[in-house]
């Protein structure tokens, strides 16, 4: 499984561009994984308050929940550390069905 953190898309460049366009932007980053998580630490997702999404932090399992948390981070201005895993009720609902666990850091771009 891949362990490096290079991404084909430059999510940071996209986040910067959205910000320059006047959007409210948050960046989510996978910071830790256990088991068969689909994306390695360092994977990023950029989100806008208007609902634009680019990049990924999982195979699609938790992007929705992360986007919700990103919107909260944008309105509060505060970062958040999210835990997803099979032991977590909420994560089970949003379906990290690969059976892995991961932590995702969500921060507003200020």
């Amino acid at each position, binding site marked *: 499984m*891949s*362990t*490096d*953190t*290079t*991404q*084909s898309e430059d999510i*940071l*460049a996209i*986040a*910067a561009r959205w*910000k320059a366009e006047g959007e409210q932007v948050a*960046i989510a*980053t996978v*910071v*830790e994984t256990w088991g068969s998580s689909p994306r*390695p*630490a*360092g994977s990023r997702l950029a989100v806008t308050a208007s609902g634009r999404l680019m990049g990924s932090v999982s195979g699609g399992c938790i992007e929705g929940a992360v986007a919700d948390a990103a919107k909260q981070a944008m309105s509060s201005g*505060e*970062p958040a*550390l999210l835990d997803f895993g099979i032991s977590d009720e909420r994560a089970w609902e949003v379906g990290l069905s690969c059976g892995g666990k991961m932590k995702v*850091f969500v*921060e*507003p*771009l*200020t």
Partner: protein
Amino acid sequence: MRAEILARLQAERAAQRPVVLLTRLSDGEQHLWPQEALPAMLAEAARAALGAEKAANVMLDGEAWFVHPHNPPLRIIVVGAVHIAQAMAPMAAPLGFSMAVVDPRRAFATEERLPGVTLSTDWPDEAMVALKPDIRTAVVTLTHDPKLDDPALDAALRSEAFYIGALGSRRTHAKRVARLKDLGHDDAAIARIHAPVGLDIAAVTAVEIALSVMAEIVAARRGAALGQPRPIPAPEQGRVSIGIGA
């Protein structure tokens, strides 16, 4: 993330300098290394993360930090601005490589044929001195012309390039090996050259050959044991195993 940190991070990346973003997870405080002086433990973790090309988590004074390395892109140096090089160019960037093409034949090495690629019309020996292939570089020769391919392979073999590939049939390669041995390269060095170049996917068109070469470069980068049969994992108990013929 503050816009100012993002701008500095992107500037370092644009300048192709290695940079590490360190984030304190309790409050989102961020620093860049080596651009900022940091406590020794964080600096050491940042250095290690760059070397391993792998993000890490460290604890300092009871606080968790995320250490996120950003290395410059890997490079592919292609000798020969030929049709296969043109097909490789649009594959390189999405796979995380920046590509340079060397060809002293100015009719071939044009911006129109290879948009977005670093072009050199120097002779390959000079070009290789300037491009300095390192452990994050793949070198591929595509010209079939010993005058162009040989000096590039000679330089590649004297470098730490993680991948060296040479287009040409087995017969062509046998002759090439003899010439490279005359230049002082031993069997172990010669064995570094992937020839015929590319994974055997029975490629016919230039794009298919480009795909096979790119796949082989990715395999080398990821340390895949290609050419050896892959072990078939034992089926889990209770799961029905299907259809892998004995």
